[in-house]
């Protein structure tokens, strides 16, 4: 096994997902399959290969540090599941 039930539970917590017992069983099996498959990458020697994270060689894209109009409060809150007219409301944190 490449991945265990406990690994999946740990990763699900990191990703802020709850899994039902059925989902947990299925995901463990499917991820194990997928991870066994991707193991074929270990056939390749990549010791001296630089990773590619981006298709073009690009440099930092800087912009002027200028004040620009931002989204009006009303628009920013328009899609909020819950708000008080000024801020997004969430369940009590502390």
């Amino acid at each position, binding site marked *: 096994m490449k991945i265990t039930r406990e690994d999946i539970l740990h990763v699900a917590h990191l990703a*802020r*997902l709850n899994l039902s017992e059925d989902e947990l069983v299925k995901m463990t099996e*499917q991820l194990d399959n997928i991870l066994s498959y991707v193991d074929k990458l270990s056939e390749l020697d990549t010791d001296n290969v*630089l990773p590619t994270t981006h*298709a073009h060689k690009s440099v930092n894209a800087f912009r002027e540090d200028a004040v620009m109009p931002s989204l009006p409060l009303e628009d920013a809150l328009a*899609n909020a*599941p819950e708000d008080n007219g000024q801020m997004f409301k969430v369940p*009590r944190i502390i």
Partner: protein
Amino acid sequence: MQPYELTMVQAMEKLDAGELSSVELTQSCLDRIAEVESDVKSFILLDGDAALNRAKQTDVERKAGKKGKILGIPLGLKDLLCTKGITTTCGSKILEKFVPPYNAAVVEKINDEGGVLLGKLTMDEFAMGSTSESCCFGVPQNPWKEGYVAGGSSGGSAASVASGECLVSLGSDTGGSIRQPASLCGVVGIKPTYGSVSRYGLVAFASSLDQIGPLSRDVADSALMMNVISGYDKRDSTSVNRETPDYSKALTEGVAGLRVGVPREYFGEGLDPEVRKIVENGIDILKRGGATIVDVSLPHTDYCVAVYYLIAPAEASSNLARYDGVSYGFRDHDAESLIDMYKQTRSTAFGAEVKRRILIGTYALSSGYYDAYYKKASQVRTLILNDFKSAFDKCDVLISPVTPTPAWKTGENVDDPLSTYLSDILTLSANLAGIPGMSVPGGFSKSGLPVGIQLQGAHFREDMLLKVAYNIEKAVGLGAKIARRQ
């Protein structure tokens, strides 16, 4: 001939000549939608009244002398392109009621050039899929044959154009999501070079791979649409600042002297004999036209599925962290603590494939596994990029199949993610390398399903793809066809 059957270029000529109004053209598309939508199921949201009002407006503007590259053309958008004031769901319950406060850059461009929006098109949830069957708001069907998939993730974008519901559409391609449905539905589709079309306002899946592109019924229409949507945008920091060519100028007859590469790894085991024959016919067409056919090798092709299914989920797990139920989208209101609210919101509203990819991605990026998975995949990505660099020293364009088989039956691979992932093997590399790729109709299988031919080129050489596709289209004679069920 009904107006909806016109290509965009033909329709523009008639509109400019005063032989057709945008209202007539738009109404013709709406009539066609009324006729076939119950079979094709391309639309998540259709707003005929808004489209007719906009069409009327463009007719007035045209009379007043306004110019626009697509002034009065009815079109559809994959439902992951933000449209101000119009719901944008990304095919997911988590964004079911999301109304963007701004337009995507490509939507601004379409509006500026006079496009008429018919509606938003079906797609796999968060563009994660190869059949569009994970869409929460209707699953598009293959417009040529009942019971077959339209492909994905831009399934609605392909099915709507193929069936004559809209003249052109936009999709997005992260691992083949424009080219594959274009091939399975018998339309033209382009995944442009990474960085040539702004991703501002595109709901992100895998940011280093995502690219927006057109789907259309012939090559000339895709070239015209590329002229509309391409160009630098400072709001997308990966957008490349270069002059945008006039893509329509690439559509010239003759391929003499062109070096056409045939990547031998794309013709291996598992390739359907009918698909092979159709692609070989495409190669013959170019050979007869005077092109030199070159045997090339892309030796790391066999590793692209493994690389892709680590990098794309890793980026997705990070991008989709924003769906937390706080500032927009679905929230589960039953949770008492913040962390339970996150968990219940995400578990209720994400579908199985999205959860699967978030889990793979989170695992590949997690402490202790990062080097073995994400870093290793990024290193092999370099080898894949180098394969293409060497290939394009020897040839100007690569020709191959888009998918190993024609469209398959609905429901076939729903519970077997790995075998669905493997069907993407011929399209994933272009996204990993950031090169442009295109599907152009090449023929039909005996069972009546369309088969596309894939063309891939060096960075920013869409002109080469368009030229070759244009010549194949002329020889094959499948341009501008409307799909009709047998």
